[in-house]
C-alpha cells in the first residue's frame, strides 16, 4: 500500500520534472523565428568580403531533402528543416567564429537552440511510410559535412567562416521560401 502510493508520487514527480519546457498548442517551427534567425545571422557582419571570393566554393544544395509532396503530408520535409537547425547548432558549437562578428551571433545561436528545444515534438510526428526519410537525412548530412570540411581545411579562418555563413544563409532562405509547413 505504502509502495503503491510512493510509486504514484514518483510518477507524478517525474511528469512534473519533464514539463520544464512550457506547453505550446501546436507543434512545429515558427516562420517568424526562422525569419529572425536569418536576419540575425545576416547582421553579424557586413557584406561578403571581396578578399574571400577566391575561397568561395559552390556546394550543391540538397534541395531533394526538402521536397514536399503534393499530398498533405509534409512531415518529412519538416523534419529535415528541424534537422537542419540541429546541424547548424552543432556547426557553431565550437567557439572559433570571427571575433569581428557582433553580439547578434549570440542571439542567433540562442534562438537556434531555443527552436530545437521547443520543437522536439516534430521528430515524433508520423510521416508516411512512402517517404524516404533516410535518403533525405543522408543528403542533408553530406551537405553539412562538406561545410564543416571548409572550416577544417582553412583552419576556421575568417574567410572560411564567411563562406560557411553564406551557405547557412542560403539554406535558411530556401527553407523560408519553399516550405508550407512553417507556422
Amino acid at each position: 500500500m505504502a509502495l503503491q502510493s510512493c510509486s504514484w508520487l514518483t510518477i507524478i514527480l517525474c511528469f512534473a520534472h519533464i514539463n520544464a519546457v512550457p506547453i505550446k498548442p501546436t507543434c512545429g517551427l515558427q516562420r517568424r523565428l526562422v525569419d529572425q534567425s536569418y536576419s540575425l545571422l545576416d547582421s553579424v557582419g557586413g557584406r561578403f568580403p571581396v578578399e574571400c571570393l577566391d575561397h568561395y566554393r559552390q556546394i550543391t544544395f540538397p534541395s531533394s531533402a526538402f521536397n514536399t509532396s503534393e499530398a498533405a503530408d509534409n512531415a518529412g520535409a519538416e523534419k529535415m528543416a528541424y534537422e537542419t537547425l540541429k546541424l547548424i547548432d552543432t556547426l557553431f558549437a565550437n567557439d572559433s567564429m570571427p571575433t569581428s562578428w557582433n553580439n547578434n551571433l549570440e542571439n542567433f545561436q540562442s534562438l537556434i537552440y531555443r527552436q530545437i528545444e521547443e520543437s522536439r515534438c516534430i521528430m515524433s510526428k508520423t510521416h508516411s511510410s512512402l517517404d524516404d526519410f533516410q535518403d533525405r537525412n543522408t543528403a542533408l548530412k553530406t551537405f553539412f559535412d562538406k561545410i564543416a570540411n571548409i572550416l577544417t581545411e582553412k583552419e576556421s579562418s575568417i574567410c572560411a567562416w564567411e563562406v560557411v555563413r553564406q551557405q547557412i544563409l542560403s539554406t535558411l532562405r530556401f527553407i523560408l521560401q519553399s516550405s508550407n509547413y512553417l507556422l
Partner: protein
Amino acid sequence: MKSHSPLVSYMLRMKAVILLEYVVFLLLSWSYSVLGAVEPPAHVTVEALNTHYVLVWDWSGERAGNQNVTFTAEWLAKYKLRRRHQDWESVCVNVSETRCDFTKAELNYLGMFVLRVRANVHTHTQTLHSAWVDRTFCPDSEAALGPPSLVEMSAQGRGLLEVKISDPVTHNNKSMKVHVPELYYRIQYWKLGTYSQRPPQVVDSVASLVTLSELEEWTDFCVRVQSRYNFYNKTSAFTSPQCIRTQGQTPYWHVALLFLLSLSGVFIAVMLFAGGFRYFFGKLKSICFPSNQLPIHIQEYLKDTSSDRPRLLSPESESELVIGRLDVCPEVVVVPATEETEEAWPEPEGVHLDRHGSGDSGVYSAEEASGGGVASQEEEELRRGEREWEKEERKRGEREWEKEERKRGEREWEKEERKRGETEEDEGVRDVCV
C-alpha cells in the same frame, strides 16, 4: 514456463522503475542532510511581465544567531550550457531578499536562458554555499503580457465611440509590438449598469484605433481592453473600465429652442443698434444744425460789419470791377469852382481815351479776329455803339473822379483843422486822456 502477458511484464517493469527512483530520491535527501550543506532555495519561479523579469524563491533553512544568509543569482544562455567553460553572468551577488530583478540583464526576448540561484551562509570563519537551483526561462513563451498602457475614449457623433489604445511598453518605454508583432487587443464594452445582467460585447482588433458603432445614443457605455497573443495563449489583465456618454442626433425641440433664442437675440441686438444710432444721430444733428436761431439784430450785425472784422466772404467781392488800365494821378487840390473842373477835363479824357483805346482795341481785335469781310452797315452800327459806350464811360469816370476829389478835399481839410487845433492846444491847457 508460464508465458507472461504483456500487461504483467509492463507492471513488472514499472515497479522496477519506481523502486529505482525511490532509491535515488532517498539517496539525494540523505546526502543533503548528512553533508550538512546549506539548504538550497526552493520554489524558484520567474515572474515576468513584458520585459521585466524577476526571479523569486523561498528559503526555509535555519538561521542561527551568528549566521548571515544571502543569495547569489546568475544567468547563462542555455546553448552555452554544454561547454566546459561557462561564463555565467551575475546579476545579484549576496543579496538578502529572496528575489532578483533580471531586467537590467537585457535578455534577448526570443532566446532561451538558464537562471540559477543559491544561498550563502556566512559565519565568522567561512561561507557555506548551497547547491545551485536552475530555472530555464524563455521570455517569448513564458513572459506574461501587460495590458495596454493607455486607453483613451471619445464620443464621435451619432452612436459612435472611438477607442484609442496605446501598446504595452518594455522597460525602455518601447512598444511591445517590437517583440510580439502578432499582438492584438480585445475590447469589451457594455451599457453602464448592465454588466452583471448580460455578457458584454466583444471586439478584437489589431489596430490601435477602434470605432464602436451602432451604439445607443445619449447613453453611458463602459469599455475595457486586454492585449492578447495567440500562439502562446498569452492574455493580459484588463484595463480598468472607462465610461463615456455617446452623442447622438440633436432633438428637434433643442433645435427649435436654439433657433428662437438666436432669433430673439438678433432682433434685440438690431433694435438696440437702431435705437442707439438714432439717438446719436439726433445728438449730432442738434450740435451741427441747431434748431435755435440767433436774434435778428445780431445776424444783421454780423452781415453789416466793416472790413476790420476778418471774414471769409465779403459782399463787396461779389460784384467784380474789371478795369482795363488804371493810371494813378497826382493829388489835385479841390477848389469848389467850375472852371477848374474844365481844366481837369483833359485828364479824364486822357484816361478815357486810354480806356476807349483799350476798349476799341478790344473791339477791334475782336473784329479783326472775325475777319475782314464785314458789311459797312454793320460797321456804322458798331461805331455808333462805340460812341454811346464812350459817352457813358466818360460820365462814369467823371462821377468817380468827382467823388475821389471830394474825399481828398475833405481829408485835407480835416488835416488842416487838426493842425489848427494842435497849435491852439499848445497855447492852452491840454486835457490828455490816458
